[in-house]
């Protein structure tokens, strides 16, 4: 199997082998069986060629507490073969890119988890790799921190042409930012696919109402709409060949029905496919 450029999610339960796969790709662990190549370079024999092309953000803590972020990142840049001056400049640039400003001169021992994760991302980016391998980048972050980290990853991957392989056990996260995904279970690769069409818009409208959903659904059916109640939500199927006009007509009916039944429309959107559905369908 091969992983395409773009942002790819590496999914699996804890202990499924995500980190091991990552370490094999980085040449930190030799595969017990089989082989792998990164940009056409064999991970066992051509590790050095890969090192310039790949940036690695490990899952675990890796920041010496008495070093400042600036010192640490520029030192690692030099360990990637950048000259001393360029290393300093790059370190300042990537730290700013990940959103670390004055704090970067302080010893890293006093950093919050969010800041530490940013430094870890910065050190993976400092030598300008073509591929970022991020192992559980949102681990330990609060919801706001998660959002920021995901946005940062998405921006880095989309706008700067750097491919990203990001592992997580949280499907929802990956679903939002990834273009493809790889599923691992018990050390075995289960499937690898592009996401685009799979989680694209489906022919279903999702409606949430404030009021009597059952009566509302019944009214919709009476007016000739293929409506179906699912718990508190109402799902409306639209014929695949109806086009934009058909969709608009259905929406008008829904609006009129809501007005007639005196229920409030809380939500009206086209339903998107979910990664979870795919995996559940698999099992």
């Amino acid at each position, binding site marked *: 199997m091969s992983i395409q450029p773009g942002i790819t999610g590496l999914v699996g339960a804890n202990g499924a082998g995500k980190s091991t796969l990552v370490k094999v790709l980085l*040449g930190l662990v030799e595969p017990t069986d089989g082989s792998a190549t990164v940009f056409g370079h064999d991970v066992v024999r051509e590790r050095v060629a890969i*090192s310039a092309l790949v940036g690695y953000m490990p899952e675990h803590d*890796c920041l010496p507490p008495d070093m400042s972020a600036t010192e640490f990142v520029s030192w690692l840049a030099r360990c*990637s073969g950048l000259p001393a001056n360029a290393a300093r400049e*790059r370190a300042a640039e990537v730290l700013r890119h990940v959103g670390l400003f004055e704090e970067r001169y302080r010893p890293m021992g006093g950093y919050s988890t969010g800041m530490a994760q940013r430094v870890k991302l910065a050190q993976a980016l400092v030598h*300008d790799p073509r591929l970022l391998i991020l192992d559980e980048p949102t681990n330990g972050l609060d919801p706001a921190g998660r959002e920021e980290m995901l946005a940062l990853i998405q921006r880095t991957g989309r706008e700067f042409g750097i491919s990203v392989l990001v592992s997580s056990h949280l499907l929802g996260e990956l679903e939002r930012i990834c273009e493809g995904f790889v599923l691992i279970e018990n050390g075995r690769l289960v499937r690898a696919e592009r996401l685009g069409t799979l989680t694209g818009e489906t022919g279903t409208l999702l409606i949430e109402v404030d009021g009597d959903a059952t009566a509302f659904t019944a009214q919709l059916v009476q007016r000739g709409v293929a409506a179906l109640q699912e718990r508190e939500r109402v799902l409306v199927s639209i014929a695949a060949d109806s086009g934009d006009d058909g969709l608009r007509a259905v929406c008008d009916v829904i609006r009129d029905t809501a007005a007639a039944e005196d229920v409030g429309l809380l939500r009206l959107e086209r339903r998107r496919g979910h990664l979870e559905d795919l995996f559940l369908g698999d099992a």
Partner: protein
Amino acid sequence: MTAPSTRVAPNGASRNDAADDTAIHDLGYRRYDGPRVGAVGAWRALYWQGLRTMFGIGRSAKAKVVPVFVILVSMLPAAAMVLAFSLSKGVQPIRYGAMIGGQLILFVLFIAAQAPELLSRDQQHRVLPLLLTREVSRTSYASARLLAMFTALFVAALAPLLLAYIGEIGTAIDPVAAFGSMGTRIGPILAIATLTAIMMSGVASALAVWTPRRAYATAAIIGAFLVAAAIATGLDDLAGVGMRTAEMLDPIRALRTLALVLFGETNRGMEMNPPAAIGFYVALEVGLGALGAFIMHWRLRRVVV
């Protein structure tokens, strides 16, 4: 290195707009297409960082305590000897061998405190995976760390000898004549500093590489030298194994004897018990250093990151 001005920043404004504006713009991520110096540059960065760490440079005040203490305390006897030499107008000779022999335990303290800073810390804070996914192989990591330790020890051992040497020539009534008569002494000075550094860096790195816990590593290094000395002395006193065997067991004692031999000095024990050939001691110290380096490398090749 700087991106062309046509590149668009993530906020949609081009570089030129950003420059014209007084507002701060997020320039986002920029590519690096400058020079890369590869594995050689990476090795140099590792070596320099190691050497600076050995002396506590760029580290907290706490990390500087042991290196500063060792350097200062080892310089004091050298300074005192130079003072005595000049005040007595050369009657009181500077005993290089005896001086450096007495200071070896200071260097043991130095390497015991600092070797774990280089080897254990990278394992403790799990920096190794970051290094090994860069232009750093396990072998180049081992060699950069070992050479940094060797250099620091060499400098530490050389400093008091060099102070005494320069002091002796400088305070002589006729420095030129003094240099003519003792200029060759620089040979033994370099030799003893080199052998001290080889043996101690080898032994210390072989021990420190096994644990991510710095305190354990420090204890192991001091313990190893103490136990070796205790066993050698015990066997010498009780079993009467003889000087040679005792020196083979205790590399510090062997260094002490070698220092006296190299500088042409003697102590009471040596008069009764003539020392072995210089080659014996050199082989002993270099062999021990090489064994240590081999063990360290062996371990680093296998350590799981």
